[in-house]
C-alpha cells in the first residue's frame, strides 16, 4: 500500500445522502478479477447517459452534463465531499478501488457505513468524519469557489481551509499508523503467528467440532 502523504486536494461535492455502493460502482463491473481499472466506471449510472458494461471504451460514451464530476472545474479532484451514511450497502471493495482509481484519496462526510469504512482504509483512502454543520459549510465553500482546495493533514488530524481555519478529526491510531507508513495488515498480523497458534491450542479442545481436519 502506498504511504498517505499530506495533500492540498481539489474538492468535489457529492450532494446526496446514503450514497450506496451500487451507486459508487454498479454490479456489472464486479465481474472483473482484477483490482484496477474501475475508475472510468466510478458513479457509472450518474456519470453517463447510457448503461455501462465491462470492457467498454468509456471515452466514447455520452456523459451526463449535469453530473458534478463531469464539470471541468472538478477535474483532478482528490477530495470528495459527501453527505451522511456514505458507502452504505454491499461489502464490495470495488467501491474504494474505483474511488482510488479515479484519483480520490480522501472522502469527507458526516458519517460512513462500517464495511466501506474498513475497506477504504485498507486501500489507502482516508475517510474523515466531520459534523453535519461543518460539512454543510464546506459544501457551500466548494460550490462558491472554483478551484477550492483543502489541506489534508493526517499526521496532525486536521482539515485546513484556504483561509487557515482548521477542523480536527478523529481516526484510530492503528489505521492512522498503517496509512502513514503504507503498511500491509497481513504482514503485521503474521508477526503474531505465535499468539494465533496459542489461541488455537486453547480453542480446539473446548470446541473440537469447529475443526474438521482431525
Amino acid at each position, binding site marked *: 500500500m502506498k504511504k498517505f502523504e499530506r495533500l492540498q486536494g481539489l474538492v468535489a461535492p457529492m450532494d*446526496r*445522502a*446514503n450514497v*450506496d455502493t*451500487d*451507486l459508487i460502482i*454498479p*454490479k*456489472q463491473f*464486479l*465481474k*472483473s*478479477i*482484477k*483490482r484496477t481499472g474501475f475508475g472510468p466506471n466510478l458513479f457509472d*449510472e450518474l456519470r453517463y447517459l447510457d*448503461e455501462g458494461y*465491462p*470492457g467498454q471504451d468509456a471515452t466514447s460514451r455520452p456523459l451526463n452534463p449535469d453530473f458534478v464530476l463531469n464539470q471541468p472545474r472538478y477535474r483532478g479532484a482528490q477530495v470528495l465531499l459527501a*453527505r*451522511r*451514511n456514505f458507502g*452504505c*450497502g*454491499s*461489502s*464490495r*471493495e470495488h467501491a*474504494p478501488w474505483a474511488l482510488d482509481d479515479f484519483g480520490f484519496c480522501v472522502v469527507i462526510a458526516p*458519517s460512513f*457505513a*462500517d*464495511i466501506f469504512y*474498513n*475497506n477504504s482504509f*485498507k*486501500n489507502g483512502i482516508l475517510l474523515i468524519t466531520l459534523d453535519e454543520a461543518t460539512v454543510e459549510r464546506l459544501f457551500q465553500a466548494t460550490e462558491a469557489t472554483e478551484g477550492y482546495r483543502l489541506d489534508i493533514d493526517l499526521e496532525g488530524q486536521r482539515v485546513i481551509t484556504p483561509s487557515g481555519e482548521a477542523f480536527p478529526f478523529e481516526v*484510530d*491510531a*492503528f*489505521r492512522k499508523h498503517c496509512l502513514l507508513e503504507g503498511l500491509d*495488515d*497481513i504482514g503485521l*498480523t*503474521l508477526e*503474531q*503467528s505465535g*499468539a*494465533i497458534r496459542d*489461541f*488455537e491450542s486453547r*480453542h480446539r479442545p*473446548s*470446541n*473440537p*467440532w*469447529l*475443526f*474438521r*481436519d482431525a
Partner: protein
Amino acid sequence: MASQTLYDKLWAQHLVTQRDDGSALIYIDRHLLHEVTSPQAFEGLRLAGRKPWRRDANLATPDHNVPTTLKERSAGNAGILDDVSRIQVETLDANCESFEIEEFRINDERQGIVHVVGPEQGATLPGMTVVCGDSHTATHGAFAALSHGIGTSEVEHVLATQCLIAQKMKNLQVRVEGKLGLGVTAKDIVLAIIGRIGTAGGTGYAIEFAGSAIRDLSMEGRMTICNMAIEAGARVGLVAVDDHTIDYLKGRPFAPTADQWPAAVEAWRDLVSDDDAHFDKIVELDAAEIEPQVTWGTSPEMVANVSARVPDPTDANDETVTQGMNRALEYMGLSAGQKITDIQLDKVFIGSCTNSRIEDLREAAKVAKGRKVATNIQLAMVVPGSGLVKRLAEAEGLDRIFVEAGFEWREPGCSMCLAMNADKLGAGERCASTSNRNFEGRQGYGGRTHLVSPAMAAAAAVEGHFVDVRDYDYDPGNNMGRADAGEMSA
C-alpha cells in the same frame, strides 16, 4: 464475571490479542467464499507466496453469476454465456483447486447462495465467528454465530492468518414482543425495524434481535431478520440459542458428530445474553402492530404499511431527507399520496438470501396454489436458494404449484437480487421482490424494486398489484415450521 451480552461473549471467546489502540485480532472459525469478492484475494496470496492458514475453515460456492435457467445450467460453467461472468466462476474453481479449499461447484446439488448453503450444511454453528466477502453474512447470526461481511482485503487477511483486525462494536437490542398477525412474517418485522431506526440506525452496533416474537420464529425466519441487519447499518445481527437452533442443526453434514453433540449443545446453551446484560441502546416493537410492509423508495428505510399511502416528501422536516424522498419518488415513478395497493407491477421475484429457503417457498406456494399470475405480469420467477432447497421443494410439489400458476421455476443462485447474471429488470420495469435492496439500478439499470415478503410477492403476482395478504384467502404458516434436517443432507 460481569454480565455479558451474547455479542460480548462471542467477542471474548474469539479474542486473540487486544491492542492498546482499541483494535483487536479476532479468530475466525468459518470463512465462506464466492466468486465475486475472492479472486483479488487469492491473487494477493499468490503474489505474496502465502498459503491459507487453515484450509478446513473455508467453504466456497459460486452464486452471484450463475445462470438460473435449466438449459444454460445443464451445460455447467460452459453455459454461462457472459464471458466475464464465466471467467469469474472458473477463477473460483481454479483457486479452490490450487489452494485445496472445499467448493460446491455450479452443478453440485449442495451449491446455492452462500448464506443459504452455510446454515443448511451446518457449516454455520452457534458460537462460531463466520465471515464472508459479502455484507449479508449477518444472516448467520441467527445461529448465535458472530458473523459479518468483509471486504476483499479482509478475505485475503482471513485466508492468510485465520484472523481479522476488528474493533468491538456497541450493543443494540431490538426487542419484538407479542404475537404477529396472521400473514405477517419475519420479512415484515425486519422491514418495520429498518423503517423505525433507518438505514444507518445500527451503524457501529451489533444488533441482538430478542423478544417473544423472535423466539417464536423458525430458524428460516430468524435468518431473514439477521440477513437484513446490514440494511439497518449493522454489520452483525444475532439471535440467542434455543431449541429451534439446536433442532435445526442436528444431523446436518458439517454439524458436530454424535459423540461431540452433547458437549456442543451444552456449550451452545450458554450463548444467550445474561439477564442483566447492558445494552447501549434498546429499541422495542410490538409484534401485533406490524403490518405487511412494502418499500416505496430506493432505500430499505423507505417503507410503508401495505394499508398506507406513498408518503409526502414535504412532510419531512429535514432538507436532505425531503430531497432524497423526491429523488426516490421520481426514480420509482410514484407520486405522494398514491395508495400502496394501487401500485401496478411488471415482474415478481421470489428468491435471494433473504427469502429463498424452503419455508419462504412454502408460504409463497400457499398463496399461489390454484391461482394464476395476472396478465400484466410479464415474468414471475421463483429461484430456490440452493440445490437442496430446490430438491425438497420439488419433493413437496411446490414447483408444480408455481408452474401451474404461471411462475417460472428456476435453478439456484442470487439471480435477480442483484442481476449480475441474465435475470434483470429493464429500465422503468417495476418488480415486487423478496430480496433485500431496493437501491437504484440494483435489479437492472433503471429497474424499480419494491421489497416485500414471499407471501406478499406471490399475492402481488396473482393480482398484478400489491394487495394485503391478510385479506387473502390462504392458510398462512407464520414462519413457524421448520425444514427437516435429515432431508437437507446430501
